């Protein structure tokens, strides 16, 4: 039973008189524990696919099953529940609350499933420890470096023990050294059993994954398993 299964998943944006087919008939499966990179040129539909997988958006056509649950026909509340419990999202622009501390930012997902305050703090501290930020918990985003901010975002994605971690160009705003650190962190998380899907257009970033889905004009152009030999130099 795959973790993710899509059948003819399509998304069409209506722009005035014109229809933009951002995603067309994407059918694929992703198993639990996989580490997948989605690659493709800008505008090819990577984010659109991620948003659908992450339940931030609903498809125009097709079906999407997550853990065998048919997500493509869920209402707003059910989608919010899935986002809260099953999915940890990491964004290119971090998307942290600027006025809240790192700890509070990581606590956010727990607020919306009613976790009691004490447990919330313990869980958030644990997640921040996993990303080596235990000594930066009371810092606000503006007091952290880009790499540290992305670590906070990753801790936030982890805090609820989701089935799936989605990262849409997580290194897009980072220099190459910091990018590498973040990728090492994601590798670690994968090794600990997390299922990870990462969007990128950089080969260097994608080579950390075990499988690369190439997207072109809203369709899957190639589905490629990476051989160990291609992964030389990766930690």
């Amino acid at each position, binding site marked *: 039973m795959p973790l993710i299964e899509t059948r003819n998943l399509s998304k069409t944006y209506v722009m005035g008189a014109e229809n933009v087919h951002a995603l067309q008939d994407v059918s694929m499966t992703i198993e639990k524990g996989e580490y997948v990179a989605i690659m493709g040129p800008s505008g090819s539909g990577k984010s659109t696919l991620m948003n659908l997988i992450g339940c931030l958006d609903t498809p125009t056509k097709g079906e999407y099953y997550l853990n065998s649950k048919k997500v493509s026909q869920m209402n707003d509340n059910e989608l919010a529940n899935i986002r*809260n419990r099953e999915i940890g999202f990491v964004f290119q622009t971090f998307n942290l609350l600027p006025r809240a501390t790192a700890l509070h930012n990581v606590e956010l997902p727990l607020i919306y499933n009613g976790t009691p305050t004490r447990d919330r703090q313990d869980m958030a501290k644990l997640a921040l420890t996993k990303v080596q930020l235990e000594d930066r918990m009371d810092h606000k985003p503006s007091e952290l470096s880009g790499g540290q901010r992305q670590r906070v975002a990753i801790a936030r994605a982890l805090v609820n023990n989701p089935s799936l971690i989605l990262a849409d160009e997580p290194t897009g705003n980072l220099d190459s050294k910091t990018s590498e650190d973040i990728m090492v962190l994601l590798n670690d998380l994968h090794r600990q059993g997390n299922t990870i899907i990462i969007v990128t257009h950089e080969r260097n970033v994608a080579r950390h994954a075990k499988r690369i889905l190439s997207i072109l004009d809203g369709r899957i152009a190639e589905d490629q398993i990476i051989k160990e030999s291609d992964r030389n130099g990766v930690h």
Partner: protein
Amino acid sequence: MIAGSLFKISFDALIANKLRSSLTFLGIMIGVTSVMTIISALEGMMGAVAEDLSALGPSTFFVQRMGMITSEEQFLEMIKRKPLDLEMEEFIVNGCPDCDKVTPRSGTQAKVKRGNEALNQVSIRAARANMIDIVDVQVEQGRFYTSEEELYHQKVAFIGDKIREVLFAGVDPIGKDIKINNQKYTVIGISKKRGSPFGGENEDNFVYIPFATYMKQFGRPGRYLSYIIKAKSVEKLEDAMDQVRVILRSYRHVPYNEPDDFSLLTADMILDFLNQITRVFRLGLIGISSISLVVGGIVVMNIMMVSVTERTREIGIRKSLGAKQKHILVQFLFESLILTMTGGIMGIVLGYIIAKSLMGMIDMNISPSALAIISGVSISTGIGLIFGIYPAMKAARLDPIKALSYE
């Protein structure tokens, strides 16, 4: 549990935006203050009138030439009525078994002087000595006049507190003389201070003198004569009124198929009437001051809209992390409710203080009114909900992806 956390989020957001929050708070506070001032003051006034009339007691009624006028026809009918006369007194006293005490009543305005001090337009009130048993006249010092003094046309005066204050500053008035339009009277008693419900005419600016003495100085009262009658008991009030009605109809030769050509009034009837004629006025005042509340509400809505727009990205982040529409809705509603309710509570307190000091200027006291407090709290809660719901719904319905990409 979630509600508590959402409340904290709202509270923190308000603290983070101090200027914006205090503007909203102020808008609501001013609105509620003005409404509360008006409600408290009106309640205080009506309460004072009621208290004044209740001094008459529940078993007392008036006989008057003209009653309460509610229409032009009524006025035209009443204006044609014959005046009451003094001969009626004996008929009532002898013919009304359920009447306990009867006094004719009249009055005028006159200049009251002592030495170089003078008060113009003092209300000179004439009644029999039993007035003290009918109306709850509170004696501060000395005594009311007696029936002997009445019988012998004694020039004695029972004065209101204002007369004491102005003409007898620092002097004991009892036994001293005053002049009413240049006739000498001896002060025998002083009334307790009463204040004035409508600010204008001072309730303490009066002199009571025996009815017979009054007639000797000012002549027969003519049109300005009325009677106050106290029934044997509250239960006997209606019987007493019926008896007086029969006596007066026959005395004044009113045909059986004609209405009374005089009016019988109880304190309750007068109070009802006052309530009725001032209702439109009171509602109008409350309506006008409510405009400031609507303005406050619009301020709330605007500021909340700005807040929602400014925090679009935050809303997107929260939704992407699993916040449901209701969570976002409640978060923003809490914000507007915290502002309007604290503003409302401040407004109630301030309104009360202002109303109290305003009423203090006209020597009246008010106490905190349940009506004012309940309406203040519910008005401000209502404003928070009504004007906060639209921005909150707008926030709750934002599309997460669009909100996240908002710059």
